[in-house]
C-alpha cells in the first residue's frame, strides 16, 4: 500500500470485530497527514476509541491494515502520546509521579524530569496538587493529570480521546488554546475525539464524521480557517456555518442508520 | 493363685479396660494380644481394648488424664519423670526385663565393638533416643553430642552410609536391614552394656491402684499369663489379632521377633525365673536410677521409689505355664 506524500499513516479497509462478536468498525478508511489536527466525531459506541487504539497499536484490526509512512509501526510507538477516555492513573503514585511515567520509562530520573513535570502540571493548573494521590482528585482533575502526562513527553503524534469532556468551559477553552499553541510549537500531529461539534470545528483542520456502529467514515469536512484561531474565529459567521454543517452530517448519519 | 478359678468374676459383668501401647501392633505386644485372643482377660473379668500407639501418638498422656486405664511404658525414664513432675502414675509391672533397644553398625568398618561406635560421626538417633539413652551413653562411655544425626525412622540413610550407626529394636531392624541392605549388621543390645531399665512396663494412675487394686491385679496377672502363653504356647490367634491391628505385619517378622525375644531373654530372664514374668526389684530400680542421675537426667534427691510399686508382681503367677526344660 502506498501512502500519499505527506501522510504519516493510513487505515485501509479496516474491520474490527471484538471477541464477543461485536463489529466495531467495518470498511474504515482514514489517512492521517503530517502536522494536521484531525477530529473524529461520531455517535457513542461507533468505534472512535477503537480507531485510536488501532493507530496506537494497542489493538489489531481483524481485517485490513494500519500502514505507517516509512518505517514500521513499532518505531512510532514511543513517539505517541495518548490521552485515554478514562484517566487511567496509577493509584499508587502521586500526581507528579503519574506525570513522570512516560519520561521515567525513557530513563529520565525524577530530578531530570522535574522541570518538565512542573511545566506540564502548570499547563493544566495542577501545580498545587503534585503530591496528591489520584483518589484525592475530582473527576476533571484526574483527566487533567492524564492530559499532563501525555503532553510531558512532547509526542510527535498525539491521540486524544475526549480529553476535555469533564472540564468546565473556561478551563476547556484555555486548554484548547494551549493545545493549539503546543501543536504549533512541537509540530506534531493530533488525532482528536470529541463530542462537541464546536470544539471539533474550533480546533481542527479536518473533521471526520463516523457512522453508528459498525463505524465507517461517512463525511469529511475541511475547516478552512486561519491557522491561529482565537475568540475572533469563534464568533465569526464562518464558524457557525461550519458547526451547522457538521451537526447536520452527524444527525443525518444517525437518522440513516436508525431508519 | 487362689483367685484364678473363682467363679465370682465370671458371673459379674466384664469390666471395660483400655490399654494403650506405645507402638504399632507387633510381636513385642504379643502377651497382651494373647490374653485377649485366648480369653484370659475375660476369664479375669476384663473386657480389654488395646489402643495401638505410633510414632507420634500420645497414649502416655491419655492414660495420665484418664482417657486410657493402662499404658505400656517404654522405659523407666518416663516413670521417673512422672515423679519429678508430680504426675500420679505408677509402674505396676515390667514385662520386659531388658529394653530391646539396640545400636546397629556395618560389619567390617571398624565399628565392631560397642566402644568403637564412638568413632562414628553419623549416629542416627531419634529425638527421644537422644534425650534418654544417649545421655547415659555420654556419661557412661563418653559419646559426644556432635556425633548424632537425626533419624527419620527409615533405615535407608544407614544402609547408604557404611560409617553410620543407627538405633533400632533387636526384634525388628536387624531383619529389615538384612533384607534391604543385603548384609547382617552388628547388633549391640544396650541392656547388655548396662542400660538396665525395665521395659514394656504396665503403668496406671495411682488413684486406680487405690480405688480398685483388684482390677489392677487382675490386669497384671492376666497379662503375665498372656506372656507365658504367647512365648511358650500356641500364639497363632494372638498373631492374627496383631495382624488385624497392623495389616502390614508379616509372619516372618513375628517369628523373627519371638525368636529374638527368647534369644536375648527380653521377657523371661534373670529375676523372672523365680518371681515370674513381670518381676521388678528395688535393687534394679536403684541401679538404673543412679545411672540416670549420673547421666544428668535426674537430680539425686528425687524420690524415684514413688514411681513403682511391687504390690502386684513377684508372685510367681504363671510360672506353671512355662515348659520345664
Amino acid at each position, binding site marked *: 500500500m502506498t501512502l500519499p506524500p505527506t501522510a504519516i499513516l493510513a487505515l485501509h479497509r479496516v474491520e474490527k470485530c471484538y471477541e464477543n462478536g461485536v463489529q466495531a468498525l467495518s470498511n474504515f478508511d482514514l489517512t492521517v497527514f503530517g502536522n494536521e489536527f484531525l477530529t473524529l466525531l461520531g455517535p457513542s459506541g461507533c468505534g472512535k476509541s477503537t480507531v485510536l487504539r488501532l493507530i496506537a497499536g494497542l489493538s*489489531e484490526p481483524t481485517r485490513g491494515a494500519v500502514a505507517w509512512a516509512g518505517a514500521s509501526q513499532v518505531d512510532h510507538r514511543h513517539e505517541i502520546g495518548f490521552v485515554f477516555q478514562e484517566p487511567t492513573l496509577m493509584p499508587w503514585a502521586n500526581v507528579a509521579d503519574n506525570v513522570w511515567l512516560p519520561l521515567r520509562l525513557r530513563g529520565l530520573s525524577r530530578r531530570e524530569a522535574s522541570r518538565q513535570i512542573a511545566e506540564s502540571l502548570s499547563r493544566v493548573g495542577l501545580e498545587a496538587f503534585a503530591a496528591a494521590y489520584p483518589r484525592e482528585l475530582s473527576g476533571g482533575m484526574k483527566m487533567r493529570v492524564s492530559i499532563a502526562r501525555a503532553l510531558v513527553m512532547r509526542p510527535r503524534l498525539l491521540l486524544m480521546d475526549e480529553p476535555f469532556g469533564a472540564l468546565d468551559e473556561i478551563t476547556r477553552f484555555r486548554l484548547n488554546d494551549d493545545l493549539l499553541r503546543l501543536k504549533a510549537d512541537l509540530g506534531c500531529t493530533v488525532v482528536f475525539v470529541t463530542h462537541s461539534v464546536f470544539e471539533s470545528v474550533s480546533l481542527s483542520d479536518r473533521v471526520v464524521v463516523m457512522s453508528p456502529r459498525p463505524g465507517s467514515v461517512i463525511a469529511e469536512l475541511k475547516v478552512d480557517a486561519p491557522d491561529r484561531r482565537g475568540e475572533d474565529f469563534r464568533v465569526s459567521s464562518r464558524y457557525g456555518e461550519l458547526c451547522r454543517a457538521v451537526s447536520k452530517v452527524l444527525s443525518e448519519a444517525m437518522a440513516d442508520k436508525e431508519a | 493363685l487362689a483367685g484364678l478359678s473363682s467363679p465370682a468374676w465370671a458371673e459379674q459383668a466384664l469390666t471395660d479396660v483400655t490399654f494403650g501401647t506405645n507402638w504399632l501392633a507387633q510381636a513385642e505386644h504379643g502377651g497382651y494380644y494373647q490374653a485377649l485372643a485366648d480369653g484370659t482377660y475375660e476369664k479375669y473379668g476384663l473386657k480389654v481394648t488395646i489402643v495401638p500407639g*505410633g510414632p507420634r*501418638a500420645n497414649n502416655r498422656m491419655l492414660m495420665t488424664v484418664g482417657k486410657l486405664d493402662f499404658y505400656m511404658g517404654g522405659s523407666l525414664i518416663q516413670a521417673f519423670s512422672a515423679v519429678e513432675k508430680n504426675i500420679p502414675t505408677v509402674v505396676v509391672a515390667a514385662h520386659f526385663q531388658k529394653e530391646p533397644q539396640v545400636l546397629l553398625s556395618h560389619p567390617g568398618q571398624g565399628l565392631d565393638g560397642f566402644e568403637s561406635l564412638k568413632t562414628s560421626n553419623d549416629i542416627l538417633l531419634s529425638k527421644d533416643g537422644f534425650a534418654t539413652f544417649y545421655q547415659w551413653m555420654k556419661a557412661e562411655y563418653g559419646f559426644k553430642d556432635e556425633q548424632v544425626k537425626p533419624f527419620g*525412622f527409615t533405615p535407608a540413610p544407614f*544402609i547408604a552410609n557404611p560409617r553410620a550407626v543407627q538405633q533400632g529394636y533387636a526384634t525388628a531392624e536387624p531383619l529389615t536391614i538384612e533384607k534391604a541392605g543385603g548384609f547382617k549388621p552388628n547388633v549391640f543390645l544396650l541392656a547388655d552394656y548396662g542400660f538396665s531399665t525395665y521395659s514394656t512396663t504396665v503403668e496406671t494412675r495411682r488413684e486406680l491402684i487405690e480405688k480398685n487394686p483388684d482390677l489392677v491385679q487382675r490386669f497384671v496377672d492376666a497379662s503375665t499369663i498372656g506372656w507365658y502363653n504367647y512365648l511358650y504356647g500356641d500364639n497363632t490367634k494372638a498373631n492374627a489379632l496383631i495382624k488385624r491391628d497392623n495389616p*502390614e505385619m508379616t509372619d516372618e517378622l513375628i517369628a523373627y521377633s519371638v525368636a529374638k525375644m527368647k534369644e536375648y531373654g527380653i521377657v523371661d530372664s534373670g529375676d523372672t525365673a523365680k518371681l515370674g514374668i513381670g518381676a521388678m526389684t528395688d535393687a534394679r530400680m536403684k541401679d538404673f536410677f543412679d545411672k540416670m542421675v549420673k547421666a544428668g537426667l535426674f537430680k539425686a534427691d528425687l524420690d524415684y521409689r514413688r514411681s513403682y510399686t511391687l504390690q502386684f508382681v513377684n508372685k510367681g503367677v504363671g510360672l506353671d505355664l512355662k515348659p520345664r526344660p
Partner: protein
Amino acid sequence: MERPLSTSSGRRFGKRDALRIALPFGLLAAAIAAWELYVRAAGVPAYILPAPSLIARTIVSDWPVLSASLLVTLRTTLLGLVLALVGGVMLAVLFSLSRLVEYSLYPFMVALQVTPVIAIAPLLLIYLPQDTAVLACAWIVAFFPILSNTMLGLQSVDRGLIDLFALYGASPSEGPAARLRSHLRVLWHLRRPAALPAFLAGLRIAVGLSLIGAVVAEMAAGSAGAGSGLAYRIIESQYRLNIPRLFAALILLAITGIVLFGAVAAITHVLLRRWHESALAPTR
C-alpha cells in the same frame, strides 16, 4: 438505535489450549523418563530411590491397601477443607461486619495460624475425641489462607461501588436491625462478588494445605491399623523400609492434591472468565 449483538460462541479450542495441556504433560513424561533412566543407569537401589516403573507396579499391586487409605485421607481432607471454608469465610464476614470483632479476634486467629499444628496435635488429643482432634488439625492448617484472602477481597472493593450500595442498599427505616440488614445486603451483592478472585486464590492455597493438614493430623493423632490413611502408610513404609510403597503413597497424595487443585482452578475459570482480569484471555 444499536444493532443487535451477533452472539458468537466465544473462543474456540485453539493452539494455546493445546499447548497448555501438552506442555506440562510432555515435561512430566520427560522428567519421569529421565528419572527411570537415571535409576537404571546408575543402579540406584530401590530403598534409596525407586524407579517410576517400580512405583507404578507398587501402586497397582498394593492398590487394595492404598486405595482404602486414600479414601480415609480424602475424607479427612475434604471435611477439613469444608470446615476451613465455612470457618474462614464466616470469620471473614464477621470481621468485615464489625471492626470491634475484628480487632478483638484477629490476633487470636493469627496465634492459631502460627502455632505449628504438629506440635499441638498431641495436646488436642487430650482435650478432644480422636475424630474431632484429627479434623481440628486439618482445619487449623487450611483455614487461615481462606480467612486472610477473603478479608483482603472483602476489603478491596471499589470505593465508587461502596458509595453506590450505601445509597441504594440503605434501609428505609433506621435502627440496628435495619443497619445489619443493609450491611448484609452489601455483603451479598457487592462484597461477595468483589471478593471472589482473592477468595479463590486463598482456596487454591487452602486445598493443598488441607491435604497437608489431613496428613499431619493423621500422623499426629490418627489411629494406626486398619482404618488408617495414607499418612500411616507412609510412616509404616518408612519404618519397614518399603520405599517403593512410600513413594507410591506420596505419588497418590500428590495426584490427589493436583486433582483437587485442578478442580478449584476450573471453578475459578468458570466464575471469573467473563469479567476478571486474572482470568481473561489477553485480547488485542
